[in-house]
């Protein structure tokens, strides 16, 4: 009965080959079965078996387990002492696909797609690219992956934003084999080889991807004209989606899109996902982890060592723990070999991950079962269970635990010997007999590399026999052995070269060889003493799974985010920005993140309050920077189009920017992060509180009104972009005006279409993110901050707004505002300006430092902003220039960086003054805040002390200690392969910075 079942099961395991080829001659002969017995087999992550047998027929596993009857005619292979692992699955690979080539760079920007055919309008969107049509088996590349233990790969072309479809391939030497799998498509925020100008920033890539999905949704219902790209995309959206992330924050950015369109992305990680663990716990994605952990830096030169940023040092320490941290948190992970060139490095890193606490089971799962589930191939691959494809690897021992050698790779049932599987041990003492001479010798070392010494006798000056010891070279391959040494004694002067066979069971070598006399002789060697090879200590290495992260995990990060505690600041001079003006000797009480008391009257000290005696100190409301570009990732300008209303700064916040902390040290508690000024209609702004240590989403001020950046003048007409950037409309101030008219007319039409649709329920219009945003402006649901310099354009934009029935909220820079202050008052717009900057371009020729005072004198709400991470830290000084230039009162000058920007941002009900019930965003200064001597002692945001001189002092010391600790770890790291530090200039985003990298160029605003 048992036998019957067995035979039955064999019949059911047909080959994966669906087609039969004509044979040239008789068909290839093959054993009917292979039986691999006495092996340690990792059948699946959960199931490890010793002394087990694996039976293979053709390309399938037909039986695995203990006490299995070996079928007749089977070729039996003894795998005693060997370990068999299922072949791993690589999810992030481009194996077998042609290399990508980028079109040559042209000095003229390319605004439109050059791809002909019925495709999407943007060259970075090409879901129509399919790996199956491009794939060619590449035996050489296959070998590289097989040496790392892989047998399968999901291959795709990593290019563009929607990259296209991948193919699941089975590695082997001969054929191009693609296995059926779930439709798997890849995505990223990098536009790749596309030369099209749009998108030029990550926020642009995000907007483009969202728009593409909206287009696909609409297209599904409105297929009047075929779009090949969208047809493919629609098909792919139902399959497995993989997203290339190049930083942990990109995962969170992509996840927002996934949620918007109810998609499930699996993420190809970048190795620092430990930093977003809590966010990852809330999503069900699998993270495909790289394990090419950073090498230790060469820190021998302290001049160089001190330049290495702490965050890089910390990441070096944390990276190997990344797989453990994610896996222990219950997050599904896969492990990828990406960025490894050498198999040894891959294995070294995999073992390092295991040493750092990743369990063997989880590691194997991440390399086999999890990827098979994601690709829908788990019925075929991933384990060595009955019925699965016979792709596996035989190792000389457990590769998860120690350095192991791959002896054989079996791909689709094809046996491929990689290393002769003789496992003998030559170590010991021997006597060599050759041509009647006797030489004692000893073999040491290990089976991977033997070392030996051999002795012979010589006569010294006094004719006394003495023993001499020389090196003996031992080479062994299979049962062959080569011995080589040099002799200089009475009889022989020269080399002895011996070749022979070994039988280590009996400890005998014998064979033939050449001796220095030139004679061809027989030789033999007999083991005299067996020395045991050094047995490795069985004690497993203590796994270090402890770690501590800072918030953020960079210099000046907090050990834990400061709590919201009641705070009483007494005996202070309070700059209330309210009717009371400046109150001396007063107290401010902060409770539950709000201001609970202001003044000289009696107050109740909440229990557990921190009491600060601020005698001689001044307290103001936190500074609000109306125009800032800090804390932004990969691009502050979407310069690929003249209108980019669809992009959102809020999509690309970087909560780890050290400039957040630096601004806090200057008393800033909130900043409006603006899109740059590369185009007339820029992107949507983000208004954040400087909640150092919080996540990107937590930085945002949720209840704040929505804003957008517009720009006028030289930047938008590309005046300073060189001679080739003169083909984008507009190139003149005349064109700028017409662009606005056209844009808002289109938005009006768009609104009309939706209105009709809502009425009739028919003809649902296509969602257009750009026009959506412009419609918000028309409906006064979004407000404009416009970069502006000269009076003509300021006047022009106010007229445009009047025509369409909305009001410009704020002119920023507005350096000629003083010339049209009366017109601005009439329109009802505010001004946010620099205190004294000018002379950086032609359009600021008439800028004057009295601008703020003059505008204010006409009743305009005037703020002073920074537009600069450096100046942002001392906006109090800049406000004080209002006193110098134009004679403002100190209170009015102070309001220009507190209450007035709060008004311009519509948050003066929550911020901008010391008033009971307002947010506890409060700064304690050592002196009058407008004095050059004023130094920030405390910065409180939402009632949390996020900066204080005292804590800062501690953090500095801790930064140094942490740096020293990790540097000494690196010094102790004994690997020869160290990374040389290449300093990177700290770049900053300015209004005029184009592209995704921060600029070290001059700020031209």
């Amino acid at each position, binding site marked *: 009965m048992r036998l019957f079942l067995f035979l039955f099961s064999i019949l059911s395991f047909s080959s994966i080959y669906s087609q039969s080829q004509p044979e040239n001659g008789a068909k290839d002969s093959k054993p009917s079965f292979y039986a691999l017995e006495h092996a340690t087999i990792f059948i699946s992550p959960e199931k490890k078996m010793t002394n087990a047998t694996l039976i293979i027929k053709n390309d399938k596993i037909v039986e695995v387990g203990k006490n299995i009857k070996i079928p007749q005619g089977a070729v039996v292979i003894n795998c005693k002492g060997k370990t068999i692992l299922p072949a791993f699955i690589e999810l992030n690979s481009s194996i077998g696909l042609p290399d990508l080539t980028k079109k040559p760079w042209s000095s003229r920007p390319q605004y439109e797609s050059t791809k002909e055919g019925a495709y999407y309008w943007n060259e970075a969107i090409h879901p129509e690219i399919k790996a199956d049509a491009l794939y060619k088996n590449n035996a050489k590349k296959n070998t590289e992956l097989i040496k790392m233990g892989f047998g399968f790969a999901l291959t795709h072309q990593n290019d563009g934003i929607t990259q296209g479809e991948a193919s699941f391939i089975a590695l082997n030497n001969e054929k191009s084999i693609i296995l059926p799998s779930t439709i798997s498509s890849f995505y990223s925020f990098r536009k790749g080889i596309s030369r099209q100008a749009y998108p030029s920033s990550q926020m642009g890539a995000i907007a483009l991807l969202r728009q593409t999905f909206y287009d696909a949704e609409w297209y599904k219902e409105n297929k009047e004209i075929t779009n090949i790209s969208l047809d493919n995309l629609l098909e792919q959206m139902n399959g497995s989606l993989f997203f290339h992330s190049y930083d942990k924050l990109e995962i969170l950015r992509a996840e927002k899109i996934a949620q918007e369109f109810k998609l499930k992305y699996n993420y190809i990680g970048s190795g620092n996902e430990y930093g977003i663990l809590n966010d990852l716990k809330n999503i069900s994605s699998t993270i495909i982890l790289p394990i090419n952990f950073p090498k230790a830096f060469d820190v021998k030169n302290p*001049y*160089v060592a*001190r*330049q290495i*940023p*702490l*965050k890089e040092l910390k990441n070096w320490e944390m990276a190997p723990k990344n797989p453990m941290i994610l896996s222990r948190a219950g997050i599904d992970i896969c492990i990828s070999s990406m960025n490894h060139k050498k198999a040894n490095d891959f294995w070294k890193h995999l073992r390092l991950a295991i040493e750092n606490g990743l369990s063997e089971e989880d590691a194997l799962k991440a390399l086999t079962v999890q990827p098979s589930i994601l690709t829908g191939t788990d019925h075929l691959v991933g384990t060595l269970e009955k019925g699965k494809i016979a792709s596996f690897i035989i190792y000389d021992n457990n590769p998860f635990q120690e350095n192991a050698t791959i002896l054989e790779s079996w791909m689709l049932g094809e046996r491929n010997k990689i290393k002769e599987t003789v496992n003998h041990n030559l170590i010991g003492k021997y006597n060599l007999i050759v041509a009647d001479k006797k030489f004692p010798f000893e073999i040491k070392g290990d089976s991977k590399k033997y070392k030996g010494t051999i002795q012979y006798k010589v006569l010294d000056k006094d004719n006394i026999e003495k023993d001499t010891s020389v090196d003996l070279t031992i080479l062994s391959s299979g049962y062959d052995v080569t011995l080589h040494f040099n002799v200089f004694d009475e009889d022989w002067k020269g080399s002895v070269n011996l070749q022979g066979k070994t039988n280590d069971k009996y400890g005998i070598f014998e064979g033939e060889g050449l001796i220095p006399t030139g004679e061809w002789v027989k030789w033999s060697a007999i083991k005299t003493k067996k020395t045991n090879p050094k047995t490795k200590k069985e004690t497993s290495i203590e796994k270090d799974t402890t770690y501590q992260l800072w918030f953020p995990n*960079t*210099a*000046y990060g907090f050990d834990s985010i400061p709590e919201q505690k009641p705070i009483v600041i007494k005996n202070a001079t309070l700059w209330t920005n309210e009717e009371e003006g400046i109150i001396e000797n007063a107290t401010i009480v902060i409770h539950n993140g709000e201001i609970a008391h202001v003044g000289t009257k009696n107050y109740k000290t909440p229990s557990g309050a921190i009491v600060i005696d601020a005698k001689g100190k001044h307290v103001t409301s936190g500074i609000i920077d109306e125009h800032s570009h800090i804390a932004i990732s990969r691009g502050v300008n979407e310069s690929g189009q003249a209108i980019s209303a669809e992009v959102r700064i809020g999509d690309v916040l970087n909560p780890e920017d050290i400039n957040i*902390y*630096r601004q806090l*040290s200057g008393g800033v508690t909130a900043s409006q992060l603006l899109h740059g000024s590369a185009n007339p209609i820029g992107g949507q702004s983000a208004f954040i509180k400087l909640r150092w240590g919080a996540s990107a989403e937590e930085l945002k001020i949720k209840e704040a009104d929505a804003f957008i950046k517009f720009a006028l003048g030289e930047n938008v007409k590309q005046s300073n972009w060189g001679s080739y950037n003169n083909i984008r409309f507009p190139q003149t101030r005349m064109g700028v005006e017409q662009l606005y008219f056209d844009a808002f007319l289109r938005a009006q039409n768009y609104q009309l279409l939706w209105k009709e649709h809502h009425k009739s329920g028919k003809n649902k219009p296509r969602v257009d993110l750009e026009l959506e945003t412009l419609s918000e402006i028309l409906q006064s649901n979004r407000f404009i901050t416009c970069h502006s310099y000269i009076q003509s354009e300021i006047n022009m934009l106010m007229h445009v707004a009047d025509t369409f029935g909305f009001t410009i909220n704020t002119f920023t820079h507005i350096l000629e505002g*003083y*010339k049209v*202050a*009366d017109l601005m008052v009439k329109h009802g717009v505010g001004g946010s300006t620099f205190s*004294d*900057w*000018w*002379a*950086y*371009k*032609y359009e600021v*020729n*008439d*800028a*004057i430092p*009295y601008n703020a005072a*003059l505008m204010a*004198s*006409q009743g305009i709400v005037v703020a002073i902003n920074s537009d600069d991470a*450096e*100046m942002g*830290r*001392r906006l109090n*000084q800049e406000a*004080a*220039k209002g006193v*110098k230039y*134009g004679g403002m009162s*100190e209170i009015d000058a102070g309001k220009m960086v507190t209450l007035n920007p709060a008004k311009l941002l519509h948050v003066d009900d929550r911020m901008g003054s010391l008033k009971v019930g307002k947010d506890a965003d409060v700064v304690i200064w050592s002196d009058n805040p*407008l*004095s*050059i*001597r*004023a*130094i920030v002692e405390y910065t409180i945001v939402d009632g949390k002390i996020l900066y204080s001189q005292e804590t800062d002092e501690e953090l*500095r010391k801790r*930064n140094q200690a942490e*740096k020293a600790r990790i540097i000494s770890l690196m010094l102790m790291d004994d690997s020869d392969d160290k990374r*040389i*530090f*290449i*300093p990177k200039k*700290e770049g*900053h985003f300015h209004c005029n910075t184009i592209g995704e990298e921060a600029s070290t160029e*001059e*700020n*031209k605003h």
Partner: protein
Amino acid sequence: MKAIIITVLLLTTLFATCQEYHKILIVNGYLHVGNGQTIEKSLIGIEDGIITMVKNNLTTSYSPEEWDTIIDVKGQHIYPGFVAPNSTLGITEIDAVRATRDFDEVGAFNPHVRSQIAFNVESKVISTVRTNGVLISQATPRGGIISGSSAVMKLDGWNWEDATISASDGIHLNWPNSIAYWKSPKEGNEHYLKQKDEIYAFFEMAKSYSLASKKAEKDIRLEAMKDCFSGNKRVYIHANEIQQLVDIIEFSKHFNLSFPVIVGGYDAHLIPEQLIHAKIPVMLVRTHSLPQKEEDDVDLPYKLPYLLQKAGVQFCLQNEGDMEAMNARNIPFLAGTAMAYGLTMEQAIRSVTLSSCEIMGINTLYGSIEKGKSATLFISSGDALDMRGNQLTLALIDGLFMNLENSQSLLYKKYKAKYEKGK
């Protein structure tokens, strides 16, 4: 009585063009000498542009009839003219307009290129800088390995000849980055060594040339280098990082440079003894700049002046960086910030007056208000290092009264009048 006592406000209408005063006495001002000393109620006598008397009005009497004019500045502060070293002020006007940029010449070794002759005395930017008390600048070329020769200039004059204090005070050498961030590590280091070799080779050549008694052929580059080895010419070496600084010390010793100066010196506070021993002063990196490394103390650039002062390294402030020409008017506030972060007020003033002049070698005539020096000074109604106090009521360059209006104040008045009329 021959002398007239006039109020300061009236003086704003006086120009160098119509000035006839030869003997001026400024009385009762709070004098900041520039060398660290102060006199609360001072007497400053000026004759033909030279300070002939600096005394304490409480202990000295004077006879009014000896003076052509006597200016009472009671309650106000008197400072030596502030200095803007290492600046493109006057050799650029509008950063983004190439036609106005005259500070960066083609070529790697350009010691012969002189900024002095490109200096525009009528620069509108200059007019806004001097009205904040900055009366002297060092017009400094940029670019290449040796950018050229700088010149110390007065910020008022009829032409560049007239405005020159020191025609070619020094050459400016941009020390290469010790680790090139745009190269692979190995290449980067080799690149550094190669660039250093180039600099050494050039200086070897220049030094040999300077030592030769008979010159076979005149070489304009090497001529410009001559005084760096034996004369008064400074070698301003621009660098920040510690490896560069120690290499510069070695370099200066190797060539026995007369007056090496480090410009930048962000890491100078780490090797004060070496700098003191080598007698190399530092023109410090812009006080209002961000820390260069993320874990650096957030206020490090603010307190660098104090750190060098405490360690005894000779230094002065400068403001190379974004929009440096226009921002030269904020040099008083760089000193103010340095004061907030540790310097005493007089140390802070010295760091933008006498120290700068000493480092540039013009201190016999400029940098402090002392007998025998040029009357290059200004009077402010309040603390000139504070934004609120910096209000010039009077300024003299070489004893000539300066116009305290500038293009910006004129525009201000024009539009202020418009709005006042409209009401």
